[in-house]
């Protein structure tokens, strides 16, 4: 995942670096390398840099003053314009939706312009720090499903929602398998009573995984099916209920109302929004719509093996500000991996991030 973005980001960091170098002009020879003043600022939630950091308007006089007096430079917008454009293109090419890209770029710009940079201190660190903070801010903290189940009253009810063909049914099967492996008992509710073959599909999965499935006939009320599934779990002291639903488009008011009804009846602990990693800009629109009309608590991103770029992850996480819990990475039951945003960001920014993952530790 994220391989191509990683490659592009690396190139762009260099571009940022050189244009910032250019902006500085020649450095005095005798200047001794000094430790970085602010590089160690922790950026866990993407908050703005610490308050003591001075921001000045990068006018010529200010720049000169700072340069002469303190051997530092103030960054100007035009110094970083080109690499910013490249970053923008890289994000777009990696399927980060346009509005999200705009915001990341704006945040980068805001963070970098007017920033004082001590001469000859590593440019890389400055850029990395900013980029990392932007990405961390977007991806959030993540959610560990196992911890969640352990810390809540059972049965835990998880409702899977999303548009058609994103892989809800397959994801339900994979999550069932994942939870079984972690020692939880599971029951599946076949709530997709609309699509032809959906109940058979989930039934086959349940047989193969040896998991109990509650199903009615095709065309039945999904709320009733899922209510029965929850009742079954209560009666049999089962840990987790996984509730499948029919795929639906977010611009269908009636179908969205049906989902709200299911939500009222089932009272899920987690509403998991399922979307695919290959989705482009529409990912933002529909995630937002589902989040607004039905409400979501977490996200599963499927088909990550098709599109390792991961832009949709950034788009969706940024739009609805909900943690991504799993990535679906293939056709097998085991092809599901918990999503850890910090690990992903570190991975994304490459080995060089080391210098300051170190400085981050107290």
């Amino acid at each position, binding site marked *: 995942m994220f391989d191509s973005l990683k490659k592009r980001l690396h190139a762009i960091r260099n571009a940022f670096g050189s244009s910032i170098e250019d902006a500085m002009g020649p450095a005095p020879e005798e200047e001794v390398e000094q430790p970085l003043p602010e590089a160690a600022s922790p950026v866990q939630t993407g908050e703005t840099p610490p308050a003591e950091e001075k921001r000045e308007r990068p006018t010529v006089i200010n720049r000169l003053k700072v340069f002469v007096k303190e051997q530092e430079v103030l960054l100007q917008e035009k110094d970083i314009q080109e690499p910013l454009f490249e970053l923008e*293109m890289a994000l*777009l*090419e*990696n*399927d980060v*939706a*346009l*509005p999200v890209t705009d915001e990341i770029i704006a945040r980068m710009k805001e963070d970098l312009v007017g920033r004082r940079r001590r001469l000859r201190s590593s440019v890389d660190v400055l850029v990395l720090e900013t980029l990392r903070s932007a990405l961390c801010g977007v991806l959030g903290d993540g959610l560990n499903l196992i911890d969640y189940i352990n810390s809540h009253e059972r049965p835990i009810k998880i409702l899977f929602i999303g*548009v*058609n*063909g*994103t*892989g809800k049914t397959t994801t339900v099967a994979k999550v069932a398998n994942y939870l079984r492996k972690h020692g939880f008992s599971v029951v599946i509710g076949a709530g997709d009573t*609309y*699509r*032809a*073959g*959906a*109940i*058979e*599909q*989930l*039934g*086959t*999965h349940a047989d193969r995984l040896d998991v109990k499935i509650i199903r009615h006939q*095709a065309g039945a009320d999904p709320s009733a099916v899922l209510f029965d599934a929850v009742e079954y779990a209560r009666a049999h002291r089962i840990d987790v209920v996984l509730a499948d639903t029919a795929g639906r*488009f*977010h*611009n269908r008011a009636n179908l969205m109302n049906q989902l709200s009804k299911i939500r009222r009846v089932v009272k899920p602990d987690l509403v998991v929004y399922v979307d*695919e990693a*290959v*989705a*482009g*800009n*529409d*990912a933002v*629109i*529909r995630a937002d*719509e589902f989040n607004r009309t039905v409400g979501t608590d977490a996200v599963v991103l*499927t*088909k990550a*093996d*098709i*599109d390792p*770029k991961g*832009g*949709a992850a950034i788009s969706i996480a940024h739009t609805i500000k909900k943690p991504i819990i799993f990535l679906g990475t293939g*056709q097998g039951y085991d092809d599901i991996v918990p999503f850890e945003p910090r690990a992903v960001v570190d991975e994304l920014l490459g080995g060089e991030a080391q210098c300051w993952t170190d400085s981050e530790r107290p």
Partner: protein
Amino acid sequence: MLDRLGTSLKDALKKLAGRTVIDRTAVDELVRDLQRALLQADVNVKLVMQLSQAIKQRSLEEEPPKGMGVREHVLRIVYQEIVNLMGRPGEVTLGPQTILMAGLQGSGKTTTVAKLARYFQRKGLRVGVICADTFRPGAYEQLRTLCDRINVPCFGSPTETDARKIVREGQQACRHLEVVVIDTQGRHAFEENLIEEIIDLNRISRADHRWLVIDAALGQQASEQARRFHEAIEIDGVIVTKMDGTAKGGGALSAVSETKSGIVFIGSGETIEDLERFDPDGFVSRLLGMGDLRALVERAEEAVAGEDLDVNALLKGKFTLRDMYKQLEALNRMGPLKQIMSMLPLGNVQIPDDAYDITSAKMQRYRVVMDSMTAAELDDPSVIGSSRIKRIARGAGVSPDDVRDLLKYYKVMQRALKGMRGLGGGKFNMQRMMKKFGRTL
């Protein structure tokens, strides 16, 4: 969000309106807005860059044809370039054929297969379907259920695991049928053994068409996937599914560009009838979040050409009611007045929305009134006195005031044309005329 985008494009176009010389910054701005619109519609980033380069270059270098405003000129280039990118709509023959479907997981192949079966069935062909998806549980049941609803035979087996064998046997079983559609398992281009499989299926079935199913929401990955599918089995048509959502289907454009094929169908709903032949204009409009672009371009061209008007007679000062009738008819054909006004180079003249409705109603009435006139009256309106007005009013079912209103309008138009003649230039100036005409209404 969609609307906002359309609006910003329109604003950019507005800036070009009424200019006689192409302004580099205005074109830059337009191209930038266009880029954003296309990127947001998931068109491949590289394609967008190429497209916008071409548009910029052509807009700045090409001379607008005589009589065409800068805005229409640029609009036409934008339209031409996008249509270029899109290629021709894929061909669909209504005869015996075998169609092999390919696509990513969850892109809607199975549903589309059933829809296609229905499409050909309605065209009077005997259709059969083969379910070669041996992987996904329930795939056969799904296709079977859908086919049963429309009484189309569905060949397949939920227990068989060899897709090649199913296709071989299925084709035997479907020998007496005219159209055979083969559904396959969802796969992506990085799964080598599955690509291998579809190459085999293509060889075994000797399919006439190999259609790639693309989800309208598919993003930048569309290019890469389409390219690889194309390398494997030579895709000769693209079907865009899920166009009933909010996705704009830019990925399909990337796919078409990679496979050098065309879009054949569009899936736009969950029922079996929801399959449409591809309409390039509607698609581009949706892509840009703007009204029907081609219609606008054509209308602008028409307005400039003004074929329905005898320009020479007009310039000689002979503007009769007959000419006005033709003119109103032409306007009527050109569509709702509001759209015409929005594309005419009126600069930033703001006309309140409700004015349009009154105006269109009025125009309709004018035509009815003129229908009640004699040939002599139409050729020489000066003969119309008060008794003729009464007769015309009775004939048209309007009040005499309406008839007078029309005559007043005619005089305004006549004066407007005279004024133009005075300015010389020898060209029928629609812009000026529309301006006058906007003021009188």
